[in-house]
């Protein structure tokens, strides 16, 4: 077996950069930090590529199966003899794939930010956080056990928090970062409970053991059940809640649109390409467990994914803020991936959904990062997030325009761009397993094409707005990543994914199912056509359409009032009906009881002061009657 222990450096280099920049960054010029971070990530990316090439192409499958290799593992914290948190590196198809995704996108974002963030206060801080995030995300995907994953899961959460709140003087950014952290934290609670339940039943954290076919999770009959579902199922559902939170699945999605308050490169990296797919990765990581031991849990995954993809797509149609459109689009696409996992079986061609999900994850990372970076360039040029402030930008920003168009076509699923291939596999898998989900997916494909082109036309076509200064193309340091990612978006669809990333590690042949491919392309084209009609030129159709379905439009525009619901729950219920009463109770009942004790004592003290009246005869009276009482008591009442 090949020695992959050098892979340890892939996460460690960004960590080192984080510490270096964090502790000494303020001593140098800001740009030094940028270079240092970028350099570090370049090395990490290089190592990742080498690893990928070695794993997939040089070593290849052993006995027809891609092996799961624990390259490094050391005990970090020991709970019991069997339960211990190890820190290590796990090399298997999905982790290697994720290495490539993360380092690629991250490197692009690092480069891009050199231009985008130039001159910002806290430039060094930005790069420190980026490095921290890269470290955490890499650690997450390389996790050898579920607890290590949880550790890095939390770390990416906090990096995300720090980066969303990068503009900490802006109240909306602070609020968004808080929201993101707390919502995901809430989901993480589910993850933690899931881990606790799982480890109690299986007595292990190790992924290898958990997912092996003769491991405890799959062989254990897990007798205890609750509400008709086994403990394993419950624990996997709980774990999925964690994943759903991070991946912004309905109803834990509300943080993602707000997270767009962060700098745009961050949105590209964290909230489009990498961190938000961690939930998908988590389910994929435990896939054998889901598929074999808890199909019910997998159904939950599928339905949540499907619903979210539709739900988010509907909202995306009406949003004005271009980053929010992209954010909802991301939610929708991740929902797709989840759905795909949900409709997958285990092994061989049954596992098509799994493969498709991973495939889509990969391609989505490329084109969504591209979209975000493109949006960043636009925002950089226009100084606004709203598409109402944009229009006709194709003239000013040709490179951005072209790359953005490619990305739109990719996400719409137009062949032969990468999005087509991965989406096609997902729909194929859904068709075979669950027609309802297929229907949803199919509809979403059309909606996606529509809202993406609505976005595209609104930005680049339509009428020119009055810009404060003429928008201009971004500098080369920013356009290079756009071009690179555009190339990746175009060609990554040709990767033989079914030969590399499969549910059981064994390659299989995936065929393009014309029955699925043709209708999906058609519906995408229909979507594009509608968008073209409505938005290419200024037109009253959108308004009229909105007027005719006013209720739905309003609901979509207001994101189905989910923010308000959450606000209600947190402010009105938790604050007003739990915390405040508790605080009140603590002061006025518990503390008052303690004070009451003191009050009773002092009051008693005052009440009985008459006993000491200063009157000698009263003293004598007490004396004598006490003697009498004592005699009565001890001679006649308590005598033995």
């Amino acid at each position, binding site marked *: 077996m090949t020695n992959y222990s050098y892979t340890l450096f892939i996460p460690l280099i960004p960590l080192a950069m984080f510490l270096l920049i964090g502790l000494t960054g303020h001593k140098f010029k800001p740009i030094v930090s940028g270079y240092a971070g970028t350099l570090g990530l370049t090395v990490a990316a290089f190592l990742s590529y080498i690893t990928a090439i070695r794993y997939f192409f040089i070593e290849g499958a052993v006995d027809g199966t891609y092996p799961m290799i624990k390259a490094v593992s050391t*005990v*970090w*914290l*020991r*709970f*019991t003899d069997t*339960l211990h*948190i190890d820190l290590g590196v796990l090399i298997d198809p999905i982790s290697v794939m994720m290495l490539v995704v993360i380092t690629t996108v991250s490197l692009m974002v690092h480069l891009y930010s050199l231009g985008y963030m130039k001159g910002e206060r806290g430039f060094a801080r930005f790069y420190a956080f980026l490095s921290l995030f890269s470290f955490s995300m890499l650690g997450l995907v390389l996790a050898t056990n579920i*607890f290590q994953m*949880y*550790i*890095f899961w*939390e*770390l990416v959460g*906090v990096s995300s*928090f720090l980066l969303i*709140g990068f503009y*900490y*003087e*802006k*109240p909306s950014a*602070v*609020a968004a*970062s*808080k929201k993101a*952290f*707390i919502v995901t*934290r*809430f989901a*993480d*609670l589910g993850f*933690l*409970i899931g881990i*606790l*339940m799982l*480890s*109690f039943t299986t007595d292990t954290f190790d992924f290898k053991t958990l997912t092996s076919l003769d491991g405890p999770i799959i062989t254990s009959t897990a007798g205890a059940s609750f509400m008709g579902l086994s403990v394993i199922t419950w624990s996997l559902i709980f774990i999925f809640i964690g994943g759903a939170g991070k991946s912004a699945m309905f109803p834990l999605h509300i943080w993602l649109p707000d997270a767009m308050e962060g700098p745009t490169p961050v949105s590209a990296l964290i909230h489009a390409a990498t961190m938000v797919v961690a939930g998908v990765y988590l389910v994929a990581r435990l896939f054998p467990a889901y598929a074999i031991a808890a199909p019910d849990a997998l159904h939950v995954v599928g339905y949540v994914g499907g619903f979210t993809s539709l739900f988010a797509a509907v909202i995306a149609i009406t949003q004005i803020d271009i980053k929010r459109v992209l954010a909802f689009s991301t939610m929708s696409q991740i929902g797709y991936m989840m759905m795909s996992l949900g409709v997958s079986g285990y092994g061989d061609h049954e596992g098509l959904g799994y493969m498709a999900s991973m495939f889509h994850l990969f391609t989505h990372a490329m084109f969504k990062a591209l979209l975000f970076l493109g949006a960043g360039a636009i925002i950089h040029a226009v100084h606004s997030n709203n598409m109402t402030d944009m229009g006709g930008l194709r003239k000013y920003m040709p490179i951005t325009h072209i790359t953005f168009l490619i990305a739109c076509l990719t996400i719409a699923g137009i062949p032969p761009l990468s999005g087509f291939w991965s989406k096609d596999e997902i729909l194929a898998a859904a068709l075979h397993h669950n027609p309802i989900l297929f229907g949803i997916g199919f509809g979403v494909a059309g909606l996606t094409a529509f809202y993406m082109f609505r976005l595209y036309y609104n930005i680049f076509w339509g009428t020119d707005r009055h810009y404060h200064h003429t928008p201009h193309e971004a500098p080369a340091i920013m356009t290079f990543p756009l071009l690179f990612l555009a190339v990746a978006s175009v060609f990554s669809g040709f990767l033989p994914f079914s030969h590399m990333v499969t549910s059981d590690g064994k390659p299989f042949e995936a065929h393009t199912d014309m029955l699925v491919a043709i209708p999906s392309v058609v519906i995408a084209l229909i979507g594009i056509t509608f968008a073209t009609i409505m938005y290419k030129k200024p037109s009253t159709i959108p308004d009229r359409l909105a007027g005719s379905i006013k209720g739905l439009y309003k609901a979509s525009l207001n994101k189905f009032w989910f923010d308000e619901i959450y606000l209600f729950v947190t402010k009105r219920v*938790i*604050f007003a009906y*739990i*915390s*405040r009463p*508790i*605080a009140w109770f*603590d002061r006025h009942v*518990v*503390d008052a*009881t*303690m*004070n009451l004790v*003191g009050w009773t004592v002092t009051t008693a003290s005052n009440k009985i002061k008459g006993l000491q009246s200063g009157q000698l005869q009263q003293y004598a009276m007490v004396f004598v009657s006490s003697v009498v009482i004592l005699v009565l008591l001890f001679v006649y009442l308590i005598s033995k």
Partner: protein
Amino acid sequence: MDILSWFVAIPVLTVMAILFAKDLKQTRIISAIGMSAQLGLTTWLVYAYLAERAAGNAAAWLFKYDVTWFTSLNIHYTVGVDGISVAMIALTSVVIFAGVFASWRTDYLPREFFISLILLSSGVFGFFISLDLFTMFLFYEIAVIPMYLLIGIWGTGPKEYSAMKLTLMLMGGSALIMVGLLGVYFNSAPAGQQLTFNLNEIAANGIPVVAQQFFFPMLFLGFGVLGALFPFHTWSPDGHASAPTAVSMLHAGVLMKLGGYGAFRVAIYLMPEAAQDQAWIFIILTSVSVVYGAFGAVVQKDLKYINAYSSVSHCGLVLFAILMMNQTALNGAILQMISHGLMTALFFALIGMIYGRTHTRMINEMGGLMKVLPFLGVAYVIAGLASLGLPGLSGFVAEMTIFVGAYQHTDLFHRFVTIMATTSIVVTAVYILRVVGVLLFGPIRDEHHLHLTDATWWERLSTVTLITAIAAVGIFPLWLSDMINFSLRPIVERIVAAL
């Protein structure tokens, strides 16, 4: 003199030296030297302890030293350390070291301040090294009582009320402990044999179960008061809010740990049968503490109150874990004591430093301080992250050990309350982020705050010491955890054997 007694002797010698100090300058230099020596000694102790263990010394207690004190009552001055006490000693040294620097600029009666503070620490050290229940109790009270003066004289706000409340409630707790200890003593040996206060001898003899049922709740409640057990925690918010910085640090950081440590070392260890029978009552109380404290913190406006309620929550977790009575949970409890000790000390240090600049602790009167006080701001964020259990900082290690351990309990009830307790991590996130968001981020609210200066060198030293310790525990928990585990094993075996 044996090595461990120096832990008590150094503070006492320092106090004596301070008596000859002329002014603040000399006083604080002497204090700093003394406490640095203490920290050095601690480092040496940790090293020596680990070396002994590495050399294969498997005795439960190392560096034992025994002098008979009251022969006729069989009271001894017996000291010794195991992994748990070494860890607690290390915590104390770090916190008191940081505390001395955090109170570098005490200008009102500085000598008296440092004397009380260091005297208090000697009580804490004595408590942790004692193997004899009598001396343990003696040191316990020595540790508690200077609090009255420290809060009453150097405190802020309704300090007299708070100091009195704190002292009375804690001494009420220690009153219960006294009854409990006497009960233990008079049941410590079979009829006709020499009674003893020695922890291990009592454990070896075993206490009759009937007596346990009566004395266990007394001891547990008694120590629980100091451990901020609901509903006896109300001294904590007021007390901490009024106390001066270093005192809050020491009190929340170390003194509250005496409660947990005592509950474990005395109540659980000596009376496992009764503990097993009655655990459910206290488990309910402690899980209430955990959740209730966290929710209580959410709506507070005073930084110190937030942290005090947070301490109620976190210390509740300690007692909660202790009651689970299995190896992992107990390990988690000890880790949580250390972790909470460090981070709450850091919190209080920072709050003190911020208060020293802004002269308010109300979060709604401050805002955007990160911009003017970057060092303190970052440190505060780190403390907050530690508190909400971010991996890589100590809180995570402790909480996870507790949760995993508690969830390993075979009883469904225990697992259920464990899940209840885990919900606190979300609430913790809520109040921590609320503070960070309002206090540090956003625009600056008060124009006067624009001209604040960032941390001085002593403040930095104090802060960095604590952060280093937090990170050290958080990043490399294994040595600590293993050290504790090693010493827990015989204890847990005894507990299991008793059940």
